[in-house]
């Protein structure tokens, strides 16, 4: 077992990294003065991981869309009881979520954290699926899919992703479709579980009112060592170009809502974090509420305060999104394109670059102010394949020229998709 202290030079924050003998990576952040303990046990398995093989497989296995999320639901149910019933005995607030690239099981508590940690490590390592329990869950997840279909903010994003990506599974709803989840059975769930819920593909993050030696005592007792299966996940080849430039759907909404996305070439690990940070700075130098573009769109009645920007990235996908509400999304797109092209020629505003960089640093300090946020940052770093505090280090080293170069290389205004719900 290897234990390493990791420090953030910029903020003085610190955590411990443990490479546990079971194969699991563990991050512990002891935070003096906080009552809450926040723990996440996560696997690098999300909705996009539908094609994979291990060292024992000759061929890639392809599984139905939505299976990672389905597995998350089912894992809460062990042979003799439900994990929620176990947590009820400690008072912890427990939950789980599946996103594009990860599944995480979490709890938050202000007492009995060791008992809650035992429950977490135990139930995630004990799958139990039967035909009856799988059939029952199909009804519940079917309802969840219907609920997402009624959420225009969700629909506008997936419509954009479908207009942007030809093959990459990021284009499919995390929960799958009613049709795809109907193909899921207990055997498939076991296959995915045994592949992705291998401790070499997982992480435990725990922050707040916690002691490292207590965490390790529980980990030593409950983690079941396993062999590294050298898991490989792959995606079908994805063309650079978007599928189409416009997607429109009609649903009950107040003002029409839009997502305008630029499709970029994907990156991995440190290169992805660096590119993502540079893009975020560039997006804010172009369109933060202090910018001329934002003011002009506001003065012309094109946007309201819901307007925002985002770098949306993961394994095999990378896009930049401008979103908000507008009666004239086409004009918003026109303004954005003009601003990007003008900044490519004339350069981004240097003063604005410095201010946005400073403000981003402040935002990073502000959001690391409680155990939940700290745990979330630690797991995001792991899932991106980088060390904790890497984002703030990259930010501190970032130059104006890096961001200008990023703008020229990545903000391809010919490769955009606009999705509108009205």
């Amino acid at each position: 077992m290897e234990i390493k202290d990791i420090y953030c030079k910029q903020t003085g924050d610190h955590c411990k990294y443990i490479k546990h003998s079971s194969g699991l990576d563990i991050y512990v952040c002891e935070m003096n003065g906080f009552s809450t303990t926040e723990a996440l046990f996560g696997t690098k398995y999300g909705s996009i991981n539908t094609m994979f093989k291990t060292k024992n497989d000759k061929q890639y296995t392809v599984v139905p869309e939505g299976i990672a999320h389905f597995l998350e639901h089912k894992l809460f149910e062990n042979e003799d009881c439900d994990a929620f019933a176990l947590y009820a005995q400690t008072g912890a607030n427990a939950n789980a979520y599946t996103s594009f690239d990860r599944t995480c099981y979490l709890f938050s508590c202000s007492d009995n954290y060791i008992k809650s940690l035992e429950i977490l490590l135990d139930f995630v390592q004990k799958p139990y699926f039967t035909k009856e329990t799988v059939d029952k869950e199909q009804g519940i997840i079917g309802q969840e899919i219907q609920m997402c279909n009624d959420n225009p903010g969700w629909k506008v994003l997936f419509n954009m992703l479908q207009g942007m990506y030809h093959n990459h599974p990021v284009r499919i709803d995390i929960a799958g479709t009613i049709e795809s989840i109907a193909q899921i059975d207990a055997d498939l769930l076991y296959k995915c579980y045994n592949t992705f819920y291998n401790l070499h593909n997982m992480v435990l993050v725990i922050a707040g009112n916690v002691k490292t030696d207590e965490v390790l005592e529980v980990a030593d007792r409950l983690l079941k060592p396993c062999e590294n299966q050298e898991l490989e996940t792959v995606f079908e080849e994805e063309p650079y170009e978007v599928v189409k430039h416009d997607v429109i759907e009609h649903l009950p909404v107040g003002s029409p809502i839009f997502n305008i996305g630029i499709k970029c070439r994907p990156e991995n690990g440190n290169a992805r974090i660096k590119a993502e940070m540079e893009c975020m700075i560039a997006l804010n130098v172009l369109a933060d509420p202090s910018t001329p573009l934002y003011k002009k769109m506001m003065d012309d009645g094109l946007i309201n305060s819901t307007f925002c920007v985002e770098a949306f990235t993961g394994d095999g996908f990378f896009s930049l999104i401008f979103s908000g509400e507008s009666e004239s999304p086409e004009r918003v797109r026109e303004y954005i394109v003009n601003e990007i092209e003008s900044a490519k020629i004339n350069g981004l505003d240097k003063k604005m670059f410095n201010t946005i960089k400073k403000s981003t640093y402040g935002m990073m300090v502000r959001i690391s102010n409680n155990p939940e946020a700290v745990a979330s940052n630690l797991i995001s770093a792991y899932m991106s394949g980088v060390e904790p505090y890497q984002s703030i280090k990259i930010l501190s080293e970032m130059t104006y020229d890096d961001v200008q170069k990023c703008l020229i290389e990545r903000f391809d205004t010919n490769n955009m998709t606009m999705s509108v719900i009205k």
Partner: protein
Amino acid sequence: MPVYSRKNIADGIGYTTIIDPKFKTNKIQVMFITELKKETASHNAMAVGIIGTSNSRYKNLSQLTDKLNELYGASINVDISKQADEQILSISISSIHNQYALESEDISNSVLEILMDCIFSPNASNGKFSEEPFNFRKKDHLDSIDAEINNKRNYAVIQTHKEAYKGENSENSAYGTKEDAEAVTPESAFEAYQKILKTAQTEIFFVGPEKDDIIEKIITEKFSKLERMPENLNFISPSPLKKEVSRVEEHLDVKQCKMVLALKSSCQDEYKMKFVNTVLGATAVSKLFINVREKKSLCYYCASAYNFWKQTMFIDCGIEESNIEETEKEILNQINEMKCGNITDEEMNHALLSIKNSLNGVGDTSFSYISWYFNGFIKNNVIDTETAINKYASITKQDLIEAAKTLELDTVYVMKGEEA
């Protein structure tokens, strides 16, 4: 150890400080509390929205954001909400503590100056707000009223409030109606703002890692100069039970139906009713979750929330149309189980642990500190969380049965898909 103190700095104006060295940020929040009335809700909400996006020095959102970005991304937030029959208009500023400034700048005093300018020197002249921030805020305000329908779960609860609280102040949205908002002018919003400064009960909070005497001195000086005639507010205003259950049905282009039940209670004991709510529907081992969702697979979510100020419980769920009747029956059946005493020791123990867990976590964010002490203030009963936990721990099964017996169905709202 955190240190809490509150003092009156002017007529109807309190200043609370919560000093907790674990925080990296300072937060100053000013909460104006005034009666929630249909004719003033939009004016008040828009006025506080304007002061949150501009002042006489930084005349629009663009200039203000630029300055806040320079101050390491300090942020101003406006929050408009309702509690009981009152409207809460809140403006706050958060910033990193001076020790994290890279060039030793004094962030704390700069952000205080901005906030004081927003409140005492808004972008206004000749008795009206300037057109630019007014127009921006008005569009934003109208758009947010229109956007209520985007979140179907919240929208269903808002519609249920309107029906369950019909004839009471709390039937109104804290944002007011679209028609009232459209009628607001730069003059009427400014007039409303002057009235807020004069008459609203005002609670100011400072949460940070260390005491800052300059902040306290400046806030006290500024607020004590106001001409004041504070209104009397009454937060506890139980909503009367309707003679007959009111049923509302709405059709929208949706794939999942929503149902919200409002039940009224005559129990005045907050702790007992919150305990009932926790056993019934506030956790993943509650009666509603286990029976309605898990055992009967009737819905994706089914949860309860208790509004102590109005003595009203709301239960909401997302369901298929064919399950509406059965779901209502099963929800009422679970309440009846509690009335009949079918509450196990295990259920009581789980609910108590869950309540303790959330109360012990108060103080891990400035938001939870402010909510806790603000609620204590308006109840005229500021206690620490340990005392509250002891109150919950002393509740017996018989107390819960008696409290549950006071729940009576008042309103049922159903959202269905469009009729063929």
